[in-house]
């Protein structure tokens, strides 16, 4: 088979190859070294620098379709925040984010959540807050106006933590787990922009890899303090936590599979381009 005929290969062979090459590292992990990116380090250091008792907003703005990327990020950060003794106000501006947020809280705070002693003083789950951008703005202006009750129907006024967290002036960090709109850009516009800028409301973001290029301008300006970039970002964060807090580094096989998958796709691209150039040099149709 000549290189120029590569363009005619049935794409389904490539799918099978990709399946095999991604599966093998999952079954037999390669334990490849992990370079920790600057973006993930900044999320970690920002969380480390906050004092115990600081109020962290954990916003679950994603759905089941991006759960493999966003969920490990959010769960690792929740664990970090809990270990550092910070207070968590968790919520979701996506209806589909509400059960995922509850799942993450159960995995970190225990399966009895919210029936745990620290509920209401150390951690609160508001569930779905309606209104998207308007809801975000309202929440930042006055948390009680955005939603009168928590996810379980308890009046916000009766929760001690919510009495300390009345508006954006009380937020020490906003952790945004996002995969669309409303997401990090809306937090920048309607929370950070209206309440004193990046120094007053620092934002860290965990996002799907596909969204990260669009976030870079906001990262470079400092509007976003740090980014966890997709599954790789989750793996990097888990690795950092595993060193300092003994957190389970579960994304190792996934990162191995991702690396192998990327190498295979790069090979496909290189071979495909060679085939294309050869076809063109022979005067054939591209």
């Amino acid at each position, binding site marked *: 088979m000549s290189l120029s005929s590569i363009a005619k290969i049935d794409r389904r062979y490539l799918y099978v190859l990709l399946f095999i090459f991604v599966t093998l590292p999952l079954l037999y992990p390669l334990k490849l070294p992990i370079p920790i990116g600057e973006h993930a380090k900044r999320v970690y250091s920002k969380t480390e620098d906050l004092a115990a008792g600081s109020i962290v907003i954990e916003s679950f703005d994603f759905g089941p379709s991006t759960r493999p990327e966003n969920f490990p990020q959010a769960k690792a950060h929740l664990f970090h925040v809990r270990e550092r003794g910070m207070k968590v106000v968790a919520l979701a501006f996506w209806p589909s984010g509400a059960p995922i947020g509850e799942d993450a809280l159960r995995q970190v705070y225990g399966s009895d959540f919210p029936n745990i002693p620290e509920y209401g003083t150390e951690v609160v789950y508001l569930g*779905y807050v309606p209104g998207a951008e308007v809801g975000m703005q309202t929440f930042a202006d006055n948390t009680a106006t955005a939603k009168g009750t928590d996810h379980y129907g308890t009046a916000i006024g009766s929760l001690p933590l919510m009495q300390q967290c009345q508006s954006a002036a009380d937020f020490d960090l906003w952790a945004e787990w996002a995969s669309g709109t409303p997401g990090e850009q809306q937090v920048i516009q309607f929370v950070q922009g*209206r309440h004193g800028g990046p120094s007053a409301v620092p934002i860290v973001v965990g996002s799907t*890899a*596909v969204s990260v290029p669009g976030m870079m301008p906001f990262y470079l*300006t400092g509007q976003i303090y740090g980014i966890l970039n997709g599954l790789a970002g989750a793996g990097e964060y888990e690795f950092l936590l595993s060193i300092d807090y003994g957190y389970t580094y579960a994304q190792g096989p*996934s990162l191995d599979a991702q690396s192998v998958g990327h190498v295979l796709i790069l090979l496909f691209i290189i071979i495909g381009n060679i085939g294309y150039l050869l076809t063109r040099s022979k005067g054939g149709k591209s």
Partner: protein
Amino acid sequence: MIQDLFALIFGVFATIFIYSFLWKENPLSRAIEHLFVGMAAVYTLAGMYDAAMTQAIWGTQRIEQGNFIWLIPILISLMYFFFFTKKYFYLYRYPVSIVVGIMAGMMICGMIQSNFLAQIQSTARDLPLIGAGVWEWSTVPGTGFPGLNSLIIIIGTITALSFFFFTWEHKGALGVSTKIGRYFLMATFGAAYGSTVMARISLFIGRLRFLYETTFDESGILVNAWYIIPIAVACVIIVALWLRSRPEAKPPEPAPKPEKPKSKG
């Protein structure tokens, strides 16, 4: 709980059926696709309805407590249903215009600050090409030479903007600029494509880990997700064979050409 076992079995079937689309579009992949879209829509609707009822009617300081101001947004939102009538369709435009107006007002304020002024400020701050340490290797990891970065930002911004300048023909200096701008745009799209591939593979890995690692182990019942894979694959093969055995549908006959109107006289 039995629901968890059902979720596990259904999850495996749904995953295999939806990936069977890569072989070709088939009734199984289409069924799961439609189910996903339908469930997502219903879940969103139910979540929003519940939130609205809790927020406006039953919650603290709401209508139930005598705070009748919440009737206004409820009435405005009910006006959306005039979409389904021909006679009163114009009333549907009022809630739409209110929402568009509110969003436009909010967006303009927010975007000018965060997406416009802050970005210009940051670009301008990075521009200096002369000064102490500008052409020295930065100690901040991943930064390189700040001066070189500034130069790339200046050239990239100007040339990429010139690509969208259509008032003059892209010839001479403008032609060179647009060509360089095109390369910058292609590099940007390449980075976006790379990130897209990374994201899609991550999702694929997520599904594979679900298939290989998820286990139901309760009440003496042990079910690994991968036990169910062969059954789901067998279903796909049966459908494939059934599709093959079916006589191919005849393509629809072309519509008859309209007759030319006979000229009078």
